[in-house]
């Protein structure tokens, strides 16, 4: 589809460009503003723009918290990965239309939630994780989203969103995993007469082919997928963490120094003074 020919696509691209420029701490507000300006963009934008994840409690799993995004939403309810139920509860009629993973995929979803919960504990030492899967047309293929959220009231928040697609190659011996990762990181410091915010998001796409290691039973196949996806997401998060650290704490600080820098000035003055001294010496 060419954007020049389709006005709706041009509007959508312009909306994404706008959201890439406006204050990232207000992404949810700005999304609503753009939808008010052009309501026809609502569905496309809500399903593609990442916003900080909401948290809900699952009343059928001891109020255990789970993460909410467009991928586990139906109407105004969100499916919990723990009980596999939608909350607030949907009517019987609505539930007949609600998306659920197939039985086999739900088994994989359960084990993935378990595994990524251990991973979350090891790396985040707190926070919440949730994994949601959905079936694709080809029986062996599937898609899903792996979510992590770690926050500390309003002053620092980390949201990881890994949207994944697993498609079989070579008759099911190998799989291609495509992952689009967005990490939303918000940090702020609010002091008397002074407020500082470092906030935003970075996105990376990764694609990797991996073997199922000769897995044949359903359980073996599930374990192989979790091993492949777990290893991949662990690598991506390590790289993204390094990237975030570089961008947030080096890049923005360097840019700041391009507009205001009294420290470098002292160094330049010092250098100038040295040059003068050298000139003076040379003149002797």
């Amino acid at each position, binding site marked *: 589809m060419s954007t020049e020919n389709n006005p709706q696509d*041009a*509007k959508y691209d*312009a*909306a994404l460009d*706008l959201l890439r*420029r*406006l*204050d*990232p701490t*207000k992404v949810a507000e700005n999304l609503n*503003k*753009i939808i*008010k*300006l*052009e309501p026809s963009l609502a569905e496309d934008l809500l399903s593609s723009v990442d916003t900080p994840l909401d948290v809900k409690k699952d009343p059928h799993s001891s109020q255990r918290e789970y993460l909410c995004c467009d991928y586990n939403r139906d109407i105004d309810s969100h499916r919990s990965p723990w009980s596999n139920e939608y909350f607030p509860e949907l009517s019987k009629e609505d539930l007949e239309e609600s998306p659920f993973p197939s039985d086999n995929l739900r088994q994989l979803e359960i084990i993935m939630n378990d595994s990524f919960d*251990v991973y979350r504990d*090891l*790396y985040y030492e707190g926070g919440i994780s949730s994994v949601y899967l959905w079936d694709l047309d080809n029986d062996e293929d599937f898609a899903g989203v792996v979510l992590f959220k*770690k926050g500390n009231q309003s002053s*620092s*928040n980390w949201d990881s969103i890994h949207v994944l697609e697993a498609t079989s190659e070579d008759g099911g011996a190998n799989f291609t995993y495509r992952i689009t990762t967005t990490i939303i*990181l918000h*940090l702020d*410091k609010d002091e008397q*007469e*002074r*407020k*500082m*915010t*470092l*906030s*935003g*998001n*970075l*996105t990376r796409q990764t694609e990797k082919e991996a073997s199922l290691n000769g897995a044949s039973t359903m359980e073996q196949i599930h374990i192989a997928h*979790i*091993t492949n996806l*777990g*290893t991949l997401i*662990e690598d991506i*998060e390590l790289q993204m*963490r390094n990237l*975030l*650290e570089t*961008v*947030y*704490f080096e*890049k*923005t*600080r360097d*840019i*700041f*120094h*391009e*507009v*205001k*820098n*009294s*420290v*470098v000035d002292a160094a330049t003055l010092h250098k100038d003074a040295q040059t003068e001294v050298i000139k003076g010496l040379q003149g002797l």
Partner: protein
Amino acid sequence: MSEFKEIINEIINDAPPGETQEVYADLLKITSEANADTVLECIESRNVKTVTRVFIPELDQFSLVSEFNADKDERAKFWDPVAMCRFAVDHLHLKAVDVELDVQEKALNDAQGKLYEDLKKYVTGAYPNDVATVGVFPQEEEEDVIRICIVAEKLNPANYWNGSWKSKYHYNVKEETLEGEINVYVHYFEDGNVNFQSGKEVKLQGSDVVQLIKEVETQFENELMTSFTDLNEKQFKNLRRRLPITRSKVNWGKAIGNYRLGRDAAQGL
């Protein structure tokens, strides 16, 4: 203000330094070309309210637009009392138009001229080359007050970043009080959208205004550097570890449950 214009206005106020033209183009694509005038109006009032650098091609230098140097009778025109000119502005491209040169009537007096020179000297030392523009604007209605603005901007959209620093001060010569605010905005948008914003309110007393500004701006800069370090070492590091406490990567697969067994055992469960 209509709801439509209010939304446009909020979006424009949110636009990062140096990206107004792109935001303008996006808004027209999302809504309609017919809204160009509404969007431009919002851009104009944002530029004036926040104090913005504009280029004067006739003089090959930058000047400022703000409410403090707007012409009293003809609000769309601005004075530069140092360059001794009056100009209108193409607010979208931040360029002076209809420039009238050699207009003497708003020229600074000797004391104000000296203040400007001293500020220039300070700015040359405290900001990188050629990024900062200083404005000294006496106020007709309040003869004890002088408005001082410093706007520094470095734009590099080709490398996906833009940054600005804006200081706005109100100095009362009689009471020797300096009030104002400093706002900083850095935008980095390669494969994402990261922004760093900070602001500080200023309220000081003293007779040497340049010295006061120098001290408060240097202090703010130093505080920001300390905050960067704090945010990195305290908050960021607490959100997610680089490696698990075991210092090795996760052993995925069936054995992953052992971590939980191990932890429960360690806790005596």
